[in-house]
C-alpha cells in the first residue's frame, strides 16, 4: 500500500478544507478507501479521518420521512425498527449487503460512494487500461470477462456496474443527498459513464456528503428489496430490485409503484417505464411479467452478462408480486405460480 500521511479532523470545517487538496481523501469507515489503496487504485497522499466527528451519525424518523447522518453505520440504520417499518426495502438493502463486520464499519455516506467491483478497474498492475482510473486509456473490460458488467447505462468507454444496494432503494423512493453545499435528488447525484467514466457523481472536489433524506410514502412503507446472487450471502447482486407498491381500495389495481434495479447498470437504475406501464393496471402475473421487461429497454449485452437481460425483469416481477401478495393475501392463489 502506498505511503500517506494521516490527519484526524477535529471539525467538519477542518475536514472540508483539507479535502480540497488534490490527493487528499476523506476516511470514514475505510472499507472502500483502504481496500482500493491496497489494490493500487486509490493513491492518496493525505488521509483525513472523519470517523471521530460528532453530530453526523444521527438517524431521525418521523411522519415526513427519515434523515440519516452521513457517518451513521450501515448496521445501525439497518437494525432500526422505525426504518424497518417505514422503509423496509432500505433496511433490507443494507442487511443483505456485505457482512456484519463491514456493515459495522461502513458509513451511509461512504456506501453511496463505493466504487465498482469491475475486476479490471481493481487491478491496475495487470490492466493499465481503464478509463475510470486513467481517462483516455481504454477499457479492458470490453472484450474481457463480462459476467458482472453492466447491461444498462454503459458507453463505449466504460461498462462497469455500480454494485451498491442501498442506493438502489434510495433511488426508488426519491431520496435526497445532502452535502455541505446543497441538496441533490439521488437520481441526479449519480452519473452514467458516457465519455467521462471517471466522474461517478456530481460531487465537486472537497464537497462532503453530510446526510440523506428519504420522504415517507405509502410505497416506501410497502416495499421490498430482492437480491439475486451467485451465493446466498455475502455477495454482490447478479440482479436486484427495490420495489414499492400501493394498491387501490379494490386490492387489485396498482395505485403507485416504484421500481429500481441494482447489479445491472452503471448507476442505481430507476425503471420509470415499468412504473408508468403498470399504474392503473391490475396485479396479474402475466401483466406484471410483460411490463417488467421494459426494465431492460435499451440493454446492451457484452456476452458474459447476457443472462442479466433475462434475469433482471424476472427479479422485478417477482418482487412486485411478493409485495402485492403481502398487501392482499387474497391475491396469493392467483399469483401462486410465479410469486
Amino acid at each position, binding site marked *: *500500500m*502506498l*505511503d*500517506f*500521511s*494521516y490527519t*484526524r479532523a477535529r471539525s467538519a470545517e477542518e475536514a472540508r478544507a483539507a479535502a480540497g487538496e488534490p490527493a487528499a481523501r476523506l*476516511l470514514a469507515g*475505510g*472499507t472502500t478507501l*483502504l*481496500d482500493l*489503496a*491496497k*489494490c493500487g487504485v486509490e493513491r492518496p497522499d493525505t*488521509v483525513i*479521518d472523519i*470517523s*471521530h466527528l460528532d453530530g453526523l451519525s444521527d438517524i431521525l424518523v418521523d411522519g415526513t420521512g427519515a434523515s440519516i447522518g452521513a457517518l451513521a453505520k450501515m*448496521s445501525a440504520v439497518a437494525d432500526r425498527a422505525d426504518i424497518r417499518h417505514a422503509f423496509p426495502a432500505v433496511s433490507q438493502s443494507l442487511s443483505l449487503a*456485505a*457482512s*456484519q*463486520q*463491514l456493515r*459495522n*464499519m461502513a458509513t451511509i455516506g461512504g456506501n453511496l460512494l463505493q466504487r465498482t467491483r469491475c475486476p479490471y478497474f481493481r487491478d491496475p498492475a495487470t490492466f493499465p487500461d481503464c478509463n475510470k482510473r486513467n481517462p483516455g486509456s481504454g477499457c479492458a473490460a470490453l472484450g474481457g470477462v463480462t459476467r458482472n458488467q453492466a447491461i444498462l447505462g454503459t458507453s463505449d468507454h466504460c461498462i462497469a456496474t455500480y454494485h451498491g444496494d442501498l442506493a438502489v432503494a434510495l433511488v426508488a423512493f426519491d431520496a435526497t443527498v445532502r452535502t455541505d453545499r446543497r441538496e441533490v435528488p439521488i437520481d441526479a447525484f449519480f452519473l452514467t459513464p458516457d465519455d467521462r467514466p471517471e466522474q461517478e457523481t456530481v460531487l465537486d472536489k472537497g464537497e462532503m456528503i453530510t446526510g440523506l433524506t428519504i420522504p415517507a410514502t405509502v410505497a416506501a412503507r410497502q416495499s421490498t428489496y430482492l437480491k439475486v446472487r451467485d451465493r446466498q*450471502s*455475502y455477495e454482490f447482486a447478479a440482479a436486484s430490485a427495490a420495489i414499492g407498491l400501493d394498491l387501490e381500495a379494490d386490492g387489485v389495481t396498482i395505485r403507485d409503484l416504484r421500481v429500481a434495479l441494482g447489479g445491472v447498470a452503471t448507476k442505481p437504475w430507476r425503471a420509470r417505464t415499468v412504473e408508468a406501464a403498470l399504474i392503473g393496471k391490475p396485479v396479474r402475473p402475466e401483466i406484471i411479467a410483460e411490463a417488467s421487461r421494459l426494465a431492460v429497454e435499451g440493454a446492451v449485452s457484452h456476452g458474459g452478462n447476457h443472462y442479466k437481460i433475462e434475469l433482471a425483469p424476472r427479479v422485478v416481477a417477482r418482487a412486485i408480486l411478493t409485495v402485492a401478495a403481502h398487501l392482499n393475501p387474497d391475491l396469493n392463489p392467483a399469483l401462486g405460480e410465479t410469486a
Partner: protein
Amino acid sequence: MTRTIRLSLDINERRYEIDVEPRVTLLDALRDHAGLSGTKKGCDQGQCGACTCHIDGQRVLSCLTLAAQAEGRKITTIEGIAAANGDLHPVQLAFIEHDAFQCGYCTPGQIMSAVACIREGRTGSDEEIREYMSGNLCRCGAYNSIVAAVREAAEMADA
C-alpha cells in the same frame, strides 16, 4: 517522506505505545507491533474475516482499519476474551467441544465474530447464524460444526 507516528492503543484493557507509519493497519499493528499474533491475516482485503476483532464492542475487520483510526477506542482481540484467571470464554469452549475447526487459521476470527453475533441476538435459528457469520470464511469447510458451536454458546448465554 516516511515518518512514523506515536500511537497509544487500548488493547484488551492494556495500553500499548507504538510507533508506526500512518498507513499501518490495526491488523499489522496488533501482530507486528503489539506482539498479539492471535488475530490472523488471511486475505488482507476485507473478504475473509480472519482478522475480525472488536472496536468499542462491535466486530470489525482490522485489515481495513488504520491503527491510527483506532486510537481512543477500546480494542478487543482473541487474546482478551478469556477470563482473568485463564478460564476460556464460553464460545472458545463450544468451538473445542464441537471440533469447529480443522487447520484453525480462521478460528480466532470466527470466535470474535461469534461472540459479537451472540451479543447482537442474531442466533435465533441456524439460518440466521449462517447469515450473520457469513463474513467469516473457513476454507476447511467446518461450517456445520461452527454453526453448532455458535448455537450452543448462544443457548448457554441465554440460560
